């Protein structure tokens, strides 16, 4: 059976809302993401514990779009987020504002999407300690001037 609820894939992932958007950082992969517009709304509603079917209904009503179209976009988007290990099935809604109180955007509907950034992924290679065989990382060629 398909999961009905999704939560942030903690502790590997941290998330922060900023204005109406989200920034997510995946600590293990070294990737980070911006999620804006409809995508941010979907993530926020899910992380507040709203079942995915309710997310679909909510967006469909707000944006006056056919439920089938919204459902297709939302499920595909969520599947991608799960594939990137940003969300995982489950319910772990925080105790703060209930999902129903979240205000959706007043701009028109755009299919949900995110941007992925991989420029920091190499930083984590420095921490792959079990693969470190070259001591050059620790070489210092420096006359210590007192």
């Amino acid at each position: 059976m398909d999961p009905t609820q999704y939560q942030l894939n903690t502790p590997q992932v941290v998330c922060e809302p900023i204005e109406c958007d989200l920034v997510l950082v995946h600590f293990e992969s070294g990737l980070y993401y911006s999620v804006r517009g409809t995508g941010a709304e979907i993530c926020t509603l899910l992380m507040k514990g709203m079942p995915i079917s309710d997310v679909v209904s909510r967006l469909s009503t707000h944006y006056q779009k056919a439920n089938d179209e919204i459902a297709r976009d939302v499920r595909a988007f969520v599947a991608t987020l799960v594939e990137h290990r940003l969300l995982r099935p489950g319910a772990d809604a925080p105790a703060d504002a209930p999902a129903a109180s979240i205000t959706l955007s007043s701009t028109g509907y755009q299919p949900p999407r995110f941007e992925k950034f991989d420029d920091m992924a190499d930083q984590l290679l420095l921490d792959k300690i079990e693969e470190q065989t070259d001591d050059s990382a620790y070489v210092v060629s420096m006359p210590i001037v007192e």
Partner: protein
Amino acid sequence: MQHFFESFLSGFARARGCQETGNLDLRIAGRTIRVHLSGGGLKHLLRPLAHLSPGSPDPHSAGPDLDLYVWDGSAGWEVPPFPWDARQEWYLGEIEGVEAGGVQINHHPPSGLLCMRCGKRAVYWLPDAEKLPFWEIASPFRVIFHWWARSFDAHVAHAAVVGKQGAGVLLTGRSGAGKSTMAIACADAGMDYVGDDYVLLERSPRPMAHALYNSAKMHADFLARAFPHWLPRVSGSIGPEKKSLMFLRECMPASVVNCLPITCVMLPKISGGRTAQLRETTPIEGLLALAPSTIFQLPGARTSALPFFRRWIGDLPVYDLLTGDSIASGRSLIAEFLVRQRANCR
């Protein structure tokens, strides 16, 4: 865990009994960290911090906000067994499940570098000073500074800060974007230099950046091309990329300032065009530029960085600094911006 921490303090006391020792007070964000150093192997770690020292410890002061004990295994002290196993060791030295007893711990297995903090005391120890990770040479004690800063709602940030006429801009962005280059260019022009790699940010009463290190690093070939007159200032080279290392307190002391209020965030971007330009952008771009690079390079910042930087950026304007093909053009643009800001505030 408390017992493990206390055993290291006993180890320091033992080392101090048979080695050259010294104390140095550092003033950061109006607070004092007293560094207790035993042995000569790690003495060079004080060089990037020398600009923070007000002189000898004040015997009449109320006492430091943090006592930091620094030594290595040369004293021959027998290290107690670590109360965790390798399976608990995670990325960036974090150790899962060892936060009992209020002791913060970070361990880097290849070098054996162990950092711990409990309240107002901290420990920085490694078995062999010769095996110090290269990133500690220019930016030592970073994880300890981070833990300490969190205790008063401040945060270490991977960013550069420069300024003029008492105000500063925070330069942040991905590696290679030009933060360090622009910071060094500004210092070269006589502007204020707070840091080129890591600074300490405070939010209240207004966004502030405090100096941590007076070190600056740059790729040697780029330094030779862009700032050839800086070559005599190079103290050495560090890391696998053999970056040139300089200490601005030693070569440009008039440029080094210990704190500045921040007027905006600038994201250097290498661009075409002859002259530099500022282009206003959104707060999320500022957060994307500042938080991930801090998270991935600062042990312990995983859960604190995003919410802190989001609040710190707050209502600060965020600009793309399109640097064009001239470092001087970008530097001049920063200086002009700061002068205009000051004029607008009068």
